[in-house]
């Protein structure tokens, strides 16, 4: 590891610590029992097998959307449609599970495949609008996320709804459920799928020709164009691959033992979480499980804290925001970096002088 990379690591850890520190200060202001709250936040996930399982389970959707966003953002497309693609993936999976009546084994495979297609088509819309009409993908993707939400809610209420429970679908059949891996927890097969997807994302981005073209386009679009790379193709592929992963993520989450019905009537926010995952992983899908572990741990701790003390879960969103701000801030601690580089340069000059 060279010194610049080492410094990046140090800066990231330092940013996370500052963000946690600020969050603790906020807890001190809003809570009557701040010390208990903070201790619960930090140690809560270790208290029981179930809560440790919770950490692992909540990693799964984060790895999916995080990997998707890593690929989409690597092409320098600020497409935020992962959120809607994930939601749509969940709905498609629920529809397949409820309506097709396929046997166990086949049912989840068909559900996940169709969700992948839906995700790809969905995330391609902002990309196509960018290519064909030059509309900013940032704005169009924000809009279609809301359209996805209301379309899914419409389909839920008119085709899948179980009238006896209100705004949720009928119970999903056991044939469609993904098997659990560890008894006593909800850790399910989806974790393995997520890890495979993260590795696939890494191989795709860093070991294939298309991945190279994609990153080159992201770094410098004009340079890529003059090198003969088909920009339109690259942009479209990157957004569709991201969409496939988001769609799979949504379906895996819904078919997991965590959910017994499709009951998503508001956006879940995994698309936004993906941005912090992508930021912490430095756009490398291989690191998304680590980043997801961190965020999942924080979330689980916070929800345990919210259950036992007077501090709410939402404190985590503030922590997340501060982490993004500091990690992305190029100039944060830049003085220190310069001094470090200068010191190393002097040291190496001295070595050469001796030799």
């Amino acid at each position, binding site marked *: 590891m060279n010194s610049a990379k080492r410094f990046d690591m140090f800066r990231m850890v330092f940013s996370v610590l500052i963000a946690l520190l600020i969050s603790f200060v906020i807890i001190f202001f*809003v809570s009557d029992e701040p010390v208990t709250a903070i201790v619960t936040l930090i140690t809560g996930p270790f208290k029981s097998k179930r809560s440790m399982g919770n950490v692992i389970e909540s990693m799964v959707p984060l790895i999916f959307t995080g990997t998707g966003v890593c690929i989409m953002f690597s092409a320098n497309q*600020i497409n935020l449609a992962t959120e809607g693609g994930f939601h749509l993936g969940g709905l498609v999976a629920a529809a397949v599970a409820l309506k097709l009546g396929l046997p166990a084994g086949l049912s989840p495979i068909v559900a996940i495949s169709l969700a992948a297609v839906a995700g790809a088509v969905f995330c391609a819309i902002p990309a196509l609008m960018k290519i064909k009409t030059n509309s900013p993908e*940032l704005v169009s993707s*924000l*809009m279609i996320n809301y359209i996805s939400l*209301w379309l899914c809610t*419409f389909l839920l209420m008119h085709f899948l709804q179980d009238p006896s429970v209100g705004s949720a679908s009928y119970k999903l059949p056991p044939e469609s459920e993904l098997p659990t891996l560890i008894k006593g927890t909800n850790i399910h097969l989806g974790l393995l799928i997520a890890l495979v997807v993260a590795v696939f994302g890494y191989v795709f981005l860093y070991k294939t020709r298309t991945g190279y073209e994609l990153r080159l386009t992201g770094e410098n679009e004009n340079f890529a164009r003059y090198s003969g790379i088909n920009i339109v193709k690259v942009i479209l592929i990157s957004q569709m691959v991201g969409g496939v992963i988001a769609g799979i993520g949504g379906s895996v989450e819904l078919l997991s033992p965590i959910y017994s019905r499709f009951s998503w009537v508001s956006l879940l926010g995994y698309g936004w979480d993906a941005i912090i995952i992508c930021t912490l992983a430095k756009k490398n899908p291989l690191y998304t499980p680590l980043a997801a572990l961190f965020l999942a741990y924080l979330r689980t701790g916070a929800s345990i804290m919210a259950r036992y003390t007077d501090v*709410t879960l939402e404190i985590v969103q503030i922590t997340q925001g501060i982490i993004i701000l500091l990690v992305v801030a190029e*100039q944060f601690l830049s003085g220190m970096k310069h001094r470090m580089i200068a010191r190393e340069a002097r040291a190496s000059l001295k070595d050469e002088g001796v030799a």
Partner: protein
Amino acid sequence: MLQNLLSPEFFNAILRATTPILFAALASSVASKSGITNMALEGIMLFSALFGVIFSAMTGSFPLGLLLTMVAGGVIGLMLAFFVLNLKTDEILAAIAINLMATGGTVLLMLAVSGDRGSSTSISNVSAPKIVIPLIDQIPFLGKILSGQNLMTYLSILAVVVMHLFLYKTPLGLKIRAVGENKNAAESVGISARKIQYIALILSGVLASMGGFFLSGGYMNMFTKDMSAGKGYIALAASAMGGDTPVGGFLVSLLFGAAQALANMMQLTDIPHELIQMVPYLTTLVGLGIYSYMGVRKRQKLAGK
């Protein structure tokens, strides 16, 4: 249905629905003119909607509450500027961070102040008053549209004029546009781009906060969780479609306001309400596509293709 569409009440509702989008669109246009996309509008509006309730309840007065909210909005704009301009944070990621903090922070703050998680019903805030304009309210049809609106609605239309004059008729406005057009060229004639962008982002924050104030103190009379509901993003689209000019932004905001008002009115019909909720976002998406496509065609024509 048609009768309802042609009634003055419907046009009145359009102006009311336009107000928050319009403030935010103006906020977006001044930031964009200086060369920065301010996606934090959504978060600033959400924060300001809560601040508006808290400040107006604390001071017991609408003007003071609005003023303090505007100061708070300016401070968030300043924060965004500090991160983007001094610490070189990516402007989109910084905005996403601010929006995240707004989603969580408003719930946290509301719980601390009112003890309620969902809405601020227990706080008695002071909303902006409705204004009946003498003489104008006597005009048939038009009177019912133009008079009796919320004060913030009149302020938003006044803001269009003020922002137009500011951007196109004052030296500072010229500097903002120059920096947005070409930062290096502007700096070569002695303009401090950083200072100008700071001013533009603070102003952007102040304008967005007025839109947020209207949400909880005019459109509704309380703060509810996530009440900005993407209005900041719609405003971003409105401003982009309006060519980032105040007047253009105003016209597009009216269109989106009409879509929102139409959606509200269609709730009375048999059409499923989930599809109706989609109307404002779908209008924005289609409008954005058509507008951008026209831009592409125009450039192709000019290039002689």
